[in-house]
């Protein structure tokens, strides 16, 4: 995978994250689930920022950033608290995987950026119920 391909894959992941967190955020009740609502809102803001950073990084690399899809399938019906939490967890695990790939496919500042993103996704997945993993983002281990 070239550095640009890896960054495009990460951007595609962030487009999906922004979409799904937007949907999930709209379904979580701030009055009955203030803690989950807050975590989802924080995650949404963070992923949107990262999406914008990736767009900028790709333009710097003289590549045309991939556009988002019109919509994304949520991995579960995503209405109950458990389903919404599971959707967020799955997103963070997918983001961990694309950022681990990006670490391996880039160097210098872009690799450093991907390392921070991988760390954040791995830690954030804990807040959505993940168990600690010996190899976050690496499915084959």
């Amino acid at each position: 995978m070239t550095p640009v391909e890896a960054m495009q894959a990460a951007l595609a992941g962030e487009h999906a994250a922004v979409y799904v967190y937007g949907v999930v955020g709209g379904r979580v009740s701030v009055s009955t689930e203030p803690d989950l609502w807050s975590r989802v809102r924080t995650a949404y803001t963070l992923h949107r920022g990262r999406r914008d950073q990736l767009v900028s990084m790709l333009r710097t690399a003289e590549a045309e950033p991939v556009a988002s899809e019109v919509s994304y399938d949520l991995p579960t019906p995503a209405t109950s608290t458990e389903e919404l939490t599971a959707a967020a967890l799955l997103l963070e695990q997918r983001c961990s995987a694309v950022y681990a790939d990006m670490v391996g496919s880039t160097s210098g500042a872009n690799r450093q950026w991907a390392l921070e993103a991988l760390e954040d996704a791995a830690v954030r997945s804990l807040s959505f119920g993940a168990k600690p993993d010996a190899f976050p983002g690496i499915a084959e281990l």
Partner: protein
Amino acid sequence: MSARSALPRRARPTRRAVLAGTAAGLVAGLSGCTSEHDSARRGGRHRGGGPDVDPDVAVASEALAGQRAALDLVVATQDAHPALRRDLAPLVGTHEAHVKLLGEAVPPGLAGGATAVPSASASPAAASRRSSRAVPRDPAKALADLVASEQQLTDATKQHAFVAESGAFARLLGSMAAAAAQHVVVLGAVDPSRGGGRR
């Protein structure tokens, strides 16, 4: 991206260390040019590797030393605070997996290599490391020491991932750093009052 080889493709003439076990498939082979006297020539370009050692082998050697030190502290904390044993078990499992993988990446004979002195050896370095790792009797302080250890490991492992020449090896190290970062958060949720410790 191929995840087959975590090591530089360029073949080195004198030695090829093949990674096995868990590493098989991901880390196909760590090739490094090492000589009979590598361990005697430590202190060259990299700690743990002489000037002829592949730079990624030196990185693996340093990362291995860090994982072993972190593992030693977790185990020592379990021994001093049996009530924390269960809470700390996942950390032991993760560090052991990392030590195993990295140990297979470091050629035998090189500092920290798989068949070099084991972690709990009588070597002066290991002994001084253990003695400097006294575990506080206060479980809250013991946990705080562990948090600091895992944070330090996170930062060091990210730096190793940053400098690794092989992309696949960098990916592996980045994942190990993320695992240590998870430990920092997990430890923060442990209730120290459950760890009575030895008084």
